[in-house]
Protein backbone atom coordinates (compact mmCIF):
# COMPACT_ATOMS: atom_id res chain seq x y z
CA UNK A 1 0.00 0.00 0.00
CA UNK A 2 2.02 2.90 -1.18
CA UNK A 3 -0.36 5.66 -0.34
CA UNK A 4 2.11 8.36 -1.25
CA UNK A 5 2.65 7.12 -4.76
CA UNK A 6 -0.58 8.44 -6.30
CA UNK A 7 -0.03 11.82 -4.72
CA UNK A 8 3.39 12.28 -6.20
CA UNK A 9 2.13 11.11 -9.54
CA UNK A 10 -0.72 13.54 -9.30
CA UNK A 11 1.70 16.44 -8.97
CA UNK A 12 3.26 15.62 -12.26
CA UNK A 13 -0.05 15.00 -13.88
CA UNK A 14 -0.42 18.35 -15.55
CA UNK A 15 2.97 18.30 -17.26
CA UNK A 16 2.42 14.70 -18.28
CA UNK A 17 -0.92 15.58 -19.68
CA UNK A 18 0.41 18.23 -22.01
CA UNK A 19 3.03 15.92 -23.46
CA UNK A 20 0.99 12.77 -23.70
CA UNK A 21 -1.04 12.91 -26.85
CA UNK A 22 -2.41 9.43 -26.23
CA UNK A 23 -5.55 11.05 -24.91
CA UNK A 24 -6.73 13.24 -27.76
CA UNK A 25 -8.35 16.44 -26.53
CA UNK A 26 -11.99 15.58 -26.68
CA UNK A 27 -13.81 18.93 -26.74
CA UNK A 28 -15.54 19.45 -23.43
CA UNK A 29 -19.28 19.32 -24.07
CA UNK A 30 -19.89 22.41 -21.93
CA UNK A 31 -20.20 25.31 -24.32
CA UNK A 32 -18.93 28.40 -22.56
CA UNK A 33 -21.53 31.18 -22.38
CA UNK A 34 -19.54 34.40 -22.37
CA UNK A 35 -22.55 36.32 -21.07
CA UNK A 36 -22.22 34.63 -17.68
CA UNK A 37 -18.64 35.78 -17.10
CA UNK A 38 -17.85 37.84 -14.04
CA UNK A 39 -15.53 40.80 -14.51
CA UNK A 40 -12.72 41.46 -12.07
CA UNK A 41 -13.34 45.20 -12.00
CA UNK A 42 -16.70 46.80 -12.80
CA UNK A 43 -16.65 47.55 -16.53
CA UNK A 44 -16.89 51.08 -17.86
CA UNK A 45 -20.47 52.05 -18.76
CA UNK A 46 -19.29 53.13 -22.21
CA UNK A 47 -18.24 49.57 -22.94
CA UNK A 48 -21.61 48.13 -21.91
CA UNK A 49 -24.40 47.26 -24.29
CA UNK A 50 -27.51 49.37 -23.58
CA UNK A 51 -29.68 46.28 -24.04
CA UNK A 52 -28.03 43.65 -21.82
CA UNK A 53 -26.04 46.11 -19.65
CA UNK A 54 -22.96 43.86 -19.95
CA UNK A 55 -19.71 44.60 -21.80
CA UNK A 56 -20.21 44.23 -25.54
CA UNK A 57 -19.95 40.74 -26.96
CA UNK A 58 -19.09 40.81 -30.64
CA UNK A 59 -19.98 44.51 -30.89
CA UNK A 60 -21.99 45.73 -33.87
CA UNK A 61 -22.51 49.29 -35.04
CA UNK A 62 -25.69 50.58 -36.62
CA UNK A 63 -25.81 53.09 -39.42
CA UNK A 64 -26.83 55.69 -36.83
CA UNK A 65 -23.52 54.92 -35.03
CA UNK A 66 -24.94 53.13 -32.01
CA UNK A 67 -23.22 50.03 -30.71
CA UNK A 68 -24.81 46.82 -29.38
CA UNK A 69 -23.89 43.18 -28.91
CA UNK A 70 -24.59 41.34 -32.14
CA UNK A 71 -27.02 38.97 -30.39
CA UNK A 72 -28.79 41.78 -28.58
CA UNK A 73 -29.41 43.92 -31.65
CA UNK A 74 -30.49 40.84 -33.62
CA UNK A 75 -33.10 40.04 -30.96
CA UNK A 76 -34.23 43.63 -30.81
CA UNK A 77 -34.64 43.87 -34.58
CA UNK A 78 -36.86 40.78 -34.55
CA UNK A 79 -39.26 42.81 -32.46
CA UNK A 80 -38.98 46.19 -34.10
CA UNK A 81 -36.79 47.24 -37.01
CA UNK A 82 -35.63 50.47 -35.45
CA UNK A 83 -32.58 51.48 -33.49
CA UNK A 84 -33.41 50.91 -29.81
CA UNK A 85 -31.82 54.22 -28.90
CA UNK A 86 -33.03 56.75 -31.46
CA UNK A 87 -35.74 54.70 -33.22
CA UNK A 88 -34.25 55.32 -36.67
CA UNK A 89 -35.25 52.52 -39.02
CA UNK A 90 -32.56 49.85 -39.48
CA UNK A 91 -32.36 46.56 -41.29
CA UNK A 92 -29.76 43.82 -41.14
CA UNK A 93 -27.84 45.45 -43.98
CA UNK A 94 -27.43 48.58 -41.91
CA UNK A 95 -25.30 46.70 -39.37
CA UNK A 96 -21.53 46.53 -39.46
CA UNK A 97 -18.86 45.41 -36.99
CA UNK A 98 -17.95 48.07 -34.46
CA UNK A 99 -14.50 49.70 -34.68
CA UNK A 100 -11.72 47.26 -33.84
CA UNK A 101 -10.70 49.52 -30.98
CA UNK A 102 -13.97 48.86 -29.12
CA UNK A 103 -13.72 45.13 -29.79
CA UNK A 104 -10.18 45.08 -28.40
CA UNK A 105 -11.13 47.05 -25.33
CA UNK A 106 -13.92 44.66 -24.37
CA UNK A 107 -11.82 41.62 -25.24
CA UNK A 108 -9.05 42.76 -22.92
CA UNK A 109 -11.36 43.12 -19.91
CA UNK A 110 -10.15 40.70 -17.24
CA UNK A 111 -12.62 38.05 -16.12
CA UNK A 112 -12.67 35.34 -13.49
CA UNK A 113 -12.46 31.75 -14.67
CA UNK A 114 -16.01 30.36 -15.00
CA UNK A 115 -14.94 27.58 -12.63
CA UNK A 116 -14.09 30.10 -9.90
CA UNK A 117 -16.79 28.78 -7.61
CA UNK A 118 -15.30 25.30 -7.89
CA UNK A 119 -11.88 26.54 -6.89
CA UNK A 120 -10.03 27.92 -9.91
CA UNK A 121 -8.42 31.23 -8.98
CA UNK A 122 -7.25 32.20 -12.48
CA UNK A 123 -8.18 35.57 -13.98
CA UNK A 124 -7.62 36.02 -17.70
CA UNK A 125 -8.45 38.58 -20.42
CA UNK A 126 -11.87 37.75 -21.79
CA UNK A 127 -10.68 36.63 -25.22
CA UNK A 128 -8.41 34.04 -23.59
CA UNK A 129 -10.99 32.54 -21.26
CA UNK A 130 -12.23 29.97 -23.74
CA UNK A 131 -8.68 28.74 -24.27
CA UNK A 132 -8.10 28.61 -20.54
CA UNK A 133 -11.16 26.47 -19.97
CA UNK A 134 -10.45 24.25 -22.96
CA UNK A 135 -6.74 23.71 -22.37
CA UNK A 136 -5.46 24.50 -18.92
CA UNK A 137 -8.15 25.02 -16.28
CA UNK A 138 -7.62 22.36 -13.65
CA UNK A 139 -11.22 22.45 -12.51
CA UNK A 140 -12.78 21.32 -15.77
CA UNK A 141 -14.27 17.83 -15.77
CA UNK A 142 -12.52 15.74 -18.39
CA UNK A 143 -12.60 12.08 -19.24
CA UNK A 144 -10.15 9.96 -17.32
CA UNK A 145 -9.00 8.49 -20.62
CA UNK A 146 -6.57 5.93 -19.20
CA UNK A 147 -7.24 2.70 -21.02
CA UNK A 148 -10.35 4.12 -22.62
CA UNK A 149 -11.98 4.88 -19.25
CA UNK A 150 -15.00 7.12 -19.77
CA UNK A 151 -15.39 8.35 -16.18
CA UNK A 152 -15.23 12.11 -15.67
CA UNK A 153 -12.53 13.53 -13.46
CA UNK A 154 -11.18 17.00 -12.72
CA UNK A 155 -8.30 17.84 -15.02
CA UNK A 156 -5.91 18.52 -12.13
CA UNK A 157 -6.72 15.09 -10.70
CA UNK A 158 -5.99 13.07 -13.79
CA UNK A 159 -3.03 10.72 -13.49
CA UNK A 160 -1.29 7.97 -15.38
CA UNK A 161 -3.20 5.47 -13.33
CA UNK A 162 -6.94 5.14 -13.78
CA UNK A 163 -8.53 5.55 -10.39
CA UNK A 164 -11.82 4.10 -11.61
CA UNK A 165 -10.75 0.58 -12.43
CA UNK A 166 -11.78 -2.12 -9.99
CA UNK A 167 -9.01 -3.57 -7.86
CA UNK A 168 -9.16 -6.51 -5.52
CA UNK A 169 -8.68 -5.74 -1.85
CA UNK A 170 -5.69 -7.84 -0.87
CA UNK A 171 -7.18 -8.58 2.55
CA UNK A 172 -10.79 -9.50 1.88
CA UNK A 173 -10.61 -10.09 -1.90
CA UNK A 174 -13.60 -7.81 -2.45
CA UNK A 175 -13.50 -5.64 -5.63
CA UNK A 176 -13.46 -1.89 -5.08
CA UNK A 177 -12.57 1.12 -7.24
CA UNK A 178 -8.97 2.21 -6.91
CA UNK A 179 -10.01 5.63 -5.62
CA UNK A 180 -12.23 4.10 -2.93
CA UNK A 181 -9.56 1.73 -1.60
CA UNK A 182 -8.40 3.93 1.28
CA UNK A 183 -11.98 4.30 2.54
CA UNK A 184 -12.50 0.55 2.16
CA UNK A 185 -9.55 -0.26 4.41
CA UNK A 186 -11.27 1.45 7.32
CA UNK A 187 -14.01 -1.15 7.32
CA UNK A 188 -12.35 -4.07 5.52
CA UNK A 189 -13.40 -7.38 7.00
CA UNK A 190 -10.05 -8.89 6.04
CA UNK A 191 -7.87 -6.62 8.19
CA UNK A 192 -7.62 -7.35 11.87
CA UNK A 193 -6.72 -4.86 14.55
CA UNK A 194 -5.77 -5.25 18.16
CA UNK A 195 -8.39 -4.03 20.62
CA UNK A 196 -6.59 -1.37 22.68
CA UNK A 197 -8.27 -2.69 25.88
CA UNK A 198 -8.05 -6.46 25.71
CA UNK A 199 -5.27 -6.68 23.08
CA UNK A 200 -7.09 -9.40 21.14
CA UNK A 201 -7.26 -9.38 17.34
CA UNK A 202 -10.53 -8.36 15.79
CA UNK A 203 -11.55 -7.93 12.19
CA UNK A 204 -12.12 -4.28 11.30
CA UNK A 205 -15.71 -5.00 10.41
CA UNK A 206 -16.34 -6.39 13.91
CA UNK A 207 -14.16 -3.98 15.77
CA UNK A 208 -16.73 -1.26 16.41
CA UNK A 209 -19.23 -3.64 17.96
CA UNK A 210 -16.49 -5.26 20.04
CA UNK A 211 -15.44 -1.97 21.62
CA UNK A 212 -19.05 -1.56 22.77
CA UNK A 213 -18.80 -4.79 24.71
CA UNK A 214 -15.10 -5.41 25.42
CA UNK A 215 -14.81 -6.63 29.03
CA UNK A 216 -11.52 -4.74 29.46
CA UNK A 217 -12.78 -1.38 28.27
CA UNK A 218 -13.21 1.17 31.06
CA UNK A 219 -16.72 2.45 31.56
CA UNK A 220 -18.31 4.75 34.14
CA UNK A 221 -20.67 3.44 36.83
CA UNK A 222 -24.30 3.40 35.66
CA UNK A 223 -25.09 5.86 38.46
CA UNK A 224 -22.47 8.36 37.36
CA UNK A 225 -25.26 10.80 36.56
CA UNK A 226 -26.17 10.77 40.27
CA UNK A 227 -22.59 11.39 41.31
CA UNK A 228 -20.68 8.06 41.47
CA UNK A 229 -17.13 8.86 40.30
CA UNK A 230 -16.12 5.22 39.74
CA UNK A 231 -14.68 4.19 36.37
CA UNK A 232 -13.77 0.51 36.04
CA UNK A 233 -13.24 -2.10 33.31
CA UNK A 234 -16.55 -3.47 32.17
CA UNK A 235 -16.02 -6.94 33.68
CA UNK A 236 -15.63 -5.48 37.17
CA UNK A 237 -18.51 -3.07 36.93
CA UNK A 238 -21.17 -5.62 37.90
CA UNK A 239 -19.38 -6.26 41.19
CA UNK A 240 -19.06 -2.53 41.89
CA UNK A 241 -22.67 -1.85 41.07
CA UNK A 242 -23.87 -4.51 43.53
CA UNK A 243 -22.23 -2.55 46.36
CA UNK A 244 -22.47 1.01 45.03
CA UNK A 245 -24.71 3.10 47.29
CA UNK A 246 -25.50 5.42 44.39
CA UNK A 247 -26.94 2.47 42.51
CA UNK A 248 -29.01 1.50 45.56
CA UNK A 249 -30.37 5.00 45.85
CA UNK A 250 -31.08 5.28 42.14
CA UNK A 251 -34.83 4.44 42.52
CA UNK A 252 -35.13 7.20 45.11
CA UNK A 253 -33.32 9.64 42.86
CA UNK A 254 -35.56 8.66 40.00
CA UNK A 255 -38.70 9.19 42.05
CA UNK A 256 -37.50 12.59 43.20
CA UNK A 257 -36.60 13.51 39.70
CA UNK A 258 -40.02 12.68 38.35
CA UNK A 259 -41.68 14.52 41.24
CA UNK A 260 -39.59 17.58 40.61
CA UNK A 261 -40.41 17.58 36.95
CA UNK A 262 -44.12 17.18 37.76
CA UNK A 263 -43.92 20.10 40.15
CA UNK A 264 -42.07 22.17 37.63
CA UNK A 265 -44.78 21.45 35.10
CA UNK A 266 -47.51 22.38 37.57
CA UNK A 267 -45.61 25.50 38.48
CA UNK A 268 -45.36 26.48 34.86
CA UNK A 269 -49.08 26.02 34.37
CA UNK A 270 -49.89 28.04 37.47
CA UNK A 271 -47.59 30.79 36.35
CA UNK A 272 -49.27 30.86 33.00
CA UNK A 273 -52.67 31.21 34.67
CA UNK A 274 -51.27 33.95 36.87
CA UNK A 275 -49.94 35.70 33.83
CA UNK A 276 -53.36 35.56 32.28
CA UNK A 277 -54.89 37.09 35.38
CA UNK A 278 -52.17 39.69 35.88
CA UNK A 279 -50.48 40.27 32.58
CA UNK A 280 -47.05 41.58 33.32
CA UNK A 281 -43.97 42.52 31.45
CA UNK A 282 -42.39 39.22 30.45
CA UNK A 283 -39.25 38.67 32.39
CA UNK A 284 -36.90 35.94 31.21
CA UNK A 285 -37.54 33.12 33.66
CA UNK A 286 -35.18 30.62 32.13
CA UNK A 287 -34.70 28.24 35.05
CA UNK A 288 -38.28 27.30 35.85
CA UNK A 289 -37.49 23.62 36.19
CA UNK A 290 -34.57 23.99 38.59
CA UNK A 291 -36.83 24.76 41.55
CA UNK A 292 -35.01 22.31 43.78
CA UNK A 293 -35.11 23.12 47.46
CA UNK A 294 -31.88 25.04 47.74
CA UNK A 295 -31.40 28.55 49.11
CA UNK A 296 -32.27 31.26 46.64
CA UNK A 297 -29.18 32.72 45.05
CA UNK A 298 -28.27 36.38 45.11
CA UNK A 299 -29.64 36.82 41.65
CA UNK A 300 -32.95 35.28 42.72
CA UNK A 301 -33.24 37.65 45.64
CA UNK A 302 -32.63 40.60 43.42
CA UNK A 303 -35.17 39.33 40.97
CA UNK A 304 -37.75 38.89 43.70
CA UNK A 305 -37.01 42.35 45.00
CA UNK A 306 -37.52 43.81 41.55
CA UNK A 307 -40.65 41.75 41.08
CA UNK A 308 -42.22 42.91 44.35
CA UNK A 309 -41.26 46.47 43.56
CA UNK A 310 -42.90 46.07 40.21
CA UNK A 311 -46.01 44.70 41.90
CA UNK A 312 -46.15 47.77 44.17
CA UNK A 313 -45.81 50.05 41.23
CA UNK A 314 -48.51 48.16 39.41
CA UNK A 315 -51.01 48.51 42.25
CA UNK A 316 -50.12 52.19 42.56
CA UNK A 317 -50.69 52.59 38.88
CA UNK A 318 -54.00 50.76 39.06
CA UNK A 319 -55.15 52.98 41.88
CA UNK A 320 -54.08 56.08 40.06
CA UNK A 321 -55.80 55.10 36.86
CA UNK A 322 -58.96 54.29 38.81
CA UNK A 323 -59.02 57.70 40.41
CA UNK A 324 -58.24 59.22 37.04
CA UNK A 325 -61.28 57.53 35.58
CA UNK A 326 -63.42 58.68 38.49
CA UNK A 327 -62.14 62.21 38.11
CA UNK A 328 -62.81 62.19 34.43
CA UNK A 329 -66.34 60.93 35.03
CA UNK A 330 -66.92 63.68 37.52
CA UNK A 331 -65.61 66.26 35.12
CA UNK A 332 -67.73 64.95 32.31
CA UNK A 333 -70.86 64.99 34.44
CA UNK A 334 -70.09 68.46 35.61
CA UNK A 335 -69.52 69.60 32.09
CA UNK A 336 -72.73 68.01 30.84
CA UNK A 337 -74.73 69.59 33.66
CA UNK A 338 -73.21 72.94 33.02
CA UNK A 339 -73.84 72.60 29.34
CA UNK A 340 -77.49 71.70 29.89
CA UNK A 341 -77.98 74.68 32.11
CA UNK A 342 -76.41 77.01 29.56
CA UNK A 343 -78.53 75.50 26.82
CA UNK A 344 -81.72 75.95 28.80
CA UNK A 345 -80.81 79.51 29.51
CA UNK A 346 -80.12 80.12 25.88
CA UNK A 347 -83.49 78.68 24.88
CA UNK A 348 -85.21 80.90 27.39
CA UNK A 349 -83.36 83.92 26.10
CA UNK A 350 -84.13 83.12 22.51
CA UNK A 351 -87.83 82.88 23.38
CA UNK A 352 -87.71 86.15 25.15
CA UNK A 353 -86.05 87.82 22.20
CA UNK A 354 -88.65 86.45 19.86
CA UNK A 355 -91.37 87.82 22.05
CA UNK A 356 -89.74 91.19 22.14
CA UNK A 357 -89.19 91.21 18.41
CA UNK A 358 -92.83 90.43 17.73
CA UNK A 359 -93.96 93.17 20.04
CA UNK A 360 -91.70 95.61 18.31
CA UNK A 361 -93.03 94.62 14.91
CA UNK A 362 -96.49 95.05 16.11
CA UNK A 363 -95.67 98.46 17.53
CA UNK A 364 -94.01 99.56 14.31
CA UNK A 365 -96.95 98.32 12.30
CA UNK A 366 -99.31 100.11 14.50
CA UNK A 367 -97.40 103.35 14.24
CA UNK A 368 -97.36 103.06 10.46
CA UNK A 369 -101.07 102.48 10.28
CA UNK A 370 -101.94 104.98 13.01
CA UNK A 371 -102.97 107.97 10.83
CA UNK A 372 -105.48 105.86 8.85
CA UNK A 373 -106.84 103.38 11.30
CA UNK A 374 -108.69 103.84 14.59
CA UNK A 375 -106.09 103.00 17.17
CA UNK A 376 -107.65 101.65 20.29
CA UNK A 377 -109.32 98.36 19.33
CA UNK A 378 -106.28 97.11 17.34
CA UNK A 379 -103.88 98.01 20.00
CA UNK A 380 -105.87 96.37 22.73
CA UNK A 381 -106.19 93.17 20.75
CA UNK A 382 -102.54 93.18 19.81
CA UNK A 383 -101.28 93.55 23.33
CA UNK A 384 -103.55 90.81 24.54
CA UNK A 385 -102.36 88.46 21.85
CA UNK A 386 -98.74 89.21 22.41
CA UNK A 387 -98.99 88.81 26.12
CA UNK A 388 -100.70 85.46 25.78
CA UNK A 389 -97.98 84.28 23.43
CA UNK A 390 -95.15 85.43 25.61
CA UNK A 391 -96.58 83.82 28.70
CA UNK A 392 -97.11 80.57 26.86
CA UNK A 393 -93.48 80.51 25.81
CA UNK A 394 -92.28 81.07 29.36
CA UNK A 395 -90.59 84.34 28.56
CA UNK A 396 -90.73 87.58 30.40
CA UNK A 397 -93.65 89.86 29.81
CA UNK A 398 -92.67 93.24 28.54
CA UNK A 399 -94.66 96.29 27.98
CA UNK A 400 -94.62 98.32 24.79
CA UNK A 401 -92.75 101.37 26.07
CA UNK A 402 -89.46 99.73 27.07
CA UNK A 403 -89.29 97.27 24.20
CA UNK A 404 -86.71 98.95 22.02
CA UNK A 405 -84.18 99.36 24.80
CA UNK A 406 -84.61 95.82 26.09
CA UNK A 407 -84.20 94.32 22.66
CA UNK A 408 -80.86 95.88 22.37
CA UNK A 409 -79.49 94.59 25.64
CA UNK A 410 -80.89 91.11 25.18
CA UNK A 411 -79.29 90.87 21.81
CA UNK A 412 -75.96 91.48 23.43
CA UNK A 413 -76.60 88.80 26.01
CA UNK A 414 -77.19 86.21 23.38
CA UNK A 415 -73.98 87.03 21.67
CA UNK A 416 -72.13 86.29 24.87
Amino acid at each position, binding site marked *: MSSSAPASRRNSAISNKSTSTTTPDKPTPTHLDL*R*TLRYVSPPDDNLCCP*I*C*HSPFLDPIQTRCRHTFCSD*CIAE*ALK*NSETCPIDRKPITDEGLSPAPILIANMVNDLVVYCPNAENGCTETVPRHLVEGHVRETCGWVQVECGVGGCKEMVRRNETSMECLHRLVKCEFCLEEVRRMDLDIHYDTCAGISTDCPHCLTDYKRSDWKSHVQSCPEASIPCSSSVYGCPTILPRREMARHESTCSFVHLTPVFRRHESQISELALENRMLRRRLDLLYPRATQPESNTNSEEPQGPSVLDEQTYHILSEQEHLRTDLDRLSESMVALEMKHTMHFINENMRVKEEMVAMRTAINGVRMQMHWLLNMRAQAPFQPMMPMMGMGVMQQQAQVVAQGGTTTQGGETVQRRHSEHQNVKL
Partner: protein
Amino acid sequence: MSFAVRRLQKELSKIHKDGLPQGISLVKADDFDEWLLDIRVFGENPLYKGQRFRLKFKFGNNYPIEPPEVTFTTGLERQIPMHPHIYSNGIICLDLLSPSQGWSPVQNVESVCVSIQSMLASNRKNERPEGNDEFVARNTKSPKHINFVYDDPTV
Protein backbone atom coordinates in the same frame (compact mmCIF):
# COMPACT_ATOMS: atom_id res chain seq x y z
CA MET B 1 -29.97 31.56 -16.39
CA SER B 2 -32.03 33.45 -18.90
CA PHE B 3 -31.18 36.68 -20.63
CA ALA B 4 -33.93 38.46 -18.68
CA VAL B 5 -32.63 37.28 -15.32
CA ARG B 6 -29.10 38.43 -16.08
CA ARG B 7 -30.30 41.83 -17.20
CA LEU B 8 -32.53 42.19 -14.12
CA GLN B 9 -29.66 41.18 -11.85
CA LYS B 10 -27.64 43.99 -13.38
CA GLU B 11 -30.47 46.48 -12.87
CA LEU B 12 -30.98 45.34 -9.29
CA SER B 13 -27.32 45.64 -8.35
CA LYS B 14 -27.23 49.09 -9.91
CA ILE B 15 -30.29 50.11 -7.88
CA HIS B 16 -28.66 48.80 -4.71
CA LYS B 17 -25.44 50.61 -5.56
CA ASP B 18 -26.68 53.94 -6.92
CA GLY B 19 -30.25 54.12 -5.60
CA LEU B 20 -33.32 55.32 -7.49
CA PRO B 21 -34.45 58.87 -8.41
CA GLN B 22 -36.33 60.87 -5.82
CA GLY B 23 -39.85 59.65 -5.19
CA ILE B 24 -39.22 56.13 -6.49
CA SER B 25 -38.50 53.28 -4.12
CA LEU B 26 -38.08 49.55 -4.56
CA VAL B 27 -40.55 47.67 -2.39
CA LYS B 28 -40.02 44.06 -3.38
CA ALA B 29 -37.65 42.32 -5.76
CA ASP B 30 -37.35 38.82 -4.33
CA ASP B 31 -37.30 37.15 -7.70
CA PHE B 32 -36.99 38.04 -11.35
CA ASP B 33 -40.65 37.53 -12.24
CA GLU B 34 -42.31 40.38 -10.41
CA TRP B 35 -41.12 43.55 -8.71
CA LEU B 36 -43.04 46.15 -6.74
CA LEU B 37 -42.08 49.81 -6.66
CA ASP B 38 -43.68 52.79 -4.98
CA ILE B 39 -43.80 56.16 -6.64
CA ARG B 40 -44.63 59.58 -5.31
CA VAL B 41 -45.30 62.75 -7.27
CA PHE B 42 -43.52 65.84 -6.09
CA GLY B 43 -44.60 69.40 -6.62
CA GLU B 44 -47.90 71.05 -5.96
CA ASN B 45 -50.18 68.84 -8.06
CA PRO B 46 -53.22 68.59 -5.78
CA LEU B 47 -54.37 65.35 -7.44
CA TYR B 48 -51.56 63.28 -6.01
CA LYS B 49 -50.11 65.39 -3.23
CA GLY B 50 -48.96 63.36 -0.26
CA GLN B 51 -49.96 60.04 -1.83
CA ARG B 52 -47.97 56.96 -2.77
CA PHE B 53 -48.83 54.63 -5.60
CA ARG B 54 -47.65 51.08 -6.11
CA LEU B 55 -46.43 49.82 -9.48
CA LYS B 56 -46.23 46.12 -10.27
CA PHE B 57 -43.70 45.02 -12.88
CA LYS B 58 -44.06 41.56 -14.41
CA PHE B 59 -41.14 40.44 -16.52
CA GLY B 60 -41.29 37.84 -19.24
CA ASN B 61 -38.41 35.67 -20.41
CA ASN B 62 -37.87 38.01 -23.30
CA TYR B 63 -37.30 41.14 -21.26
CA PRO B 64 -35.86 43.64 -22.23
CA ILE B 65 -36.52 42.81 -25.87
CA GLU B 66 -40.20 42.83 -24.90
CA PRO B 67 -41.59 45.32 -22.38
CA PRO B 68 -42.51 44.34 -18.84
CA GLU B 69 -46.18 44.34 -17.90
CA VAL B 70 -46.61 47.39 -15.69
CA THR B 71 -49.79 48.11 -13.74
CA PHE B 72 -50.81 50.06 -10.68
CA THR B 73 -51.99 47.93 -7.78
CA THR B 74 -53.92 48.82 -4.67
CA GLY B 75 -52.73 48.00 -1.21
CA LEU B 76 -52.38 49.42 2.23
CA GLU B 77 -52.91 53.15 1.67
CA ARG B 78 -52.23 52.67 -2.03
CA GLN B 79 -54.94 53.70 -4.51
CA ILE B 80 -55.00 53.71 -8.29
CA PRO B 81 -54.12 57.29 -9.27
CA MET B 82 -56.74 59.34 -11.09
CA HIS B 83 -55.55 59.97 -14.64
CA PRO B 84 -57.22 60.07 -18.07
CA HIS B 85 -54.87 57.25 -19.18
CA ILE B 86 -55.05 55.01 -16.14
CA TYR B 87 -58.02 52.68 -15.82
CA SER B 88 -59.48 52.06 -12.41
CA ASN B 89 -58.20 48.45 -12.49
CA GLY B 90 -54.63 49.78 -12.63
CA ILE B 91 -53.97 49.27 -16.34
CA ILE B 92 -51.86 52.07 -17.77
CA CYS B 93 -52.29 53.27 -21.31
CA LEU B 94 -48.76 54.42 -22.09
CA ASP B 95 -47.11 53.94 -25.47
CA LEU B 96 -43.75 53.32 -23.81
CA LEU B 97 -45.14 50.02 -22.50
CA SER B 98 -46.48 48.81 -25.81
CA PRO B 99 -44.34 46.11 -27.46
CA SER B 100 -45.09 47.35 -30.95
CA GLN B 101 -44.99 51.09 -30.44
CA GLY B 102 -43.01 52.87 -27.78
CA TRP B 103 -40.97 50.18 -26.08
CA SER B 104 -37.27 49.90 -26.72
CA PRO B 105 -34.89 47.41 -25.10
CA VAL B 106 -32.75 50.24 -23.84
CA GLN B 107 -35.53 51.15 -21.43
CA ASN B 108 -35.36 49.74 -17.94
CA VAL B 109 -37.34 49.61 -14.70
CA GLU B 110 -36.01 52.94 -13.56
CA SER B 111 -36.75 54.76 -16.83
CA VAL B 112 -40.30 53.33 -16.91
CA CYS B 113 -40.92 54.55 -13.36
CA VAL B 114 -39.61 58.00 -14.21
CA SER B 115 -41.88 58.18 -17.28
CA ILE B 116 -44.94 57.20 -15.25
CA GLN B 117 -43.98 59.63 -12.51
CA SER B 118 -43.81 62.52 -14.96
CA MET B 119 -47.02 61.38 -16.66
CA LEU B 120 -48.75 61.82 -13.30
CA ALA B 121 -46.98 65.06 -12.43
CA SER B 122 -48.11 66.78 -15.63
CA ASN B 123 -51.75 65.72 -15.34
CA ARG B 124 -54.42 68.20 -14.27
CA LYS B 125 -57.56 66.20 -15.06
CA ASN B 126 -59.23 64.36 -12.21
CA GLU B 127 -60.82 61.74 -14.44
CA ARG B 128 -60.64 58.17 -15.75
CA PRO B 129 -60.28 57.25 -19.42
CA GLU B 130 -63.37 57.30 -21.57
CA GLY B 131 -65.30 54.04 -21.29
CA ASN B 132 -63.46 53.09 -18.10
CA ASP B 133 -66.34 51.22 -16.45
CA GLU B 134 -67.10 49.16 -19.51
CA PHE B 135 -63.41 48.37 -20.10
CA VAL B 136 -62.79 47.39 -16.50
CA ALA B 137 -65.87 45.18 -16.46
CA ARG B 138 -65.04 43.35 -19.68
CA ASN B 139 -61.27 43.25 -19.94
CA THR B 140 -59.61 39.93 -19.19
CA LYS B 141 -56.59 40.34 -21.43
CA SER B 142 -53.18 41.11 -20.09
CA PRO B 143 -52.44 44.78 -20.56
CA LYS B 144 -49.61 44.13 -23.00
CA HIS B 145 -52.00 42.69 -25.54
CA ILE B 146 -54.54 45.43 -25.54
CA ASN B 147 -54.34 47.64 -28.56
CA PHE B 148 -54.62 51.06 -27.14
CA VAL B 149 -54.84 53.99 -29.44
CA TYR B 150 -52.17 56.41 -28.37
CA ASP B 151 -53.79 59.51 -29.65
CA ASP B 152 -52.98 62.03 -26.97
CA PRO B 153 -49.78 63.87 -27.73
CA THR B 154 -49.80 65.54 -24.34
CA VAL B 155 -48.86 62.31 -22.57
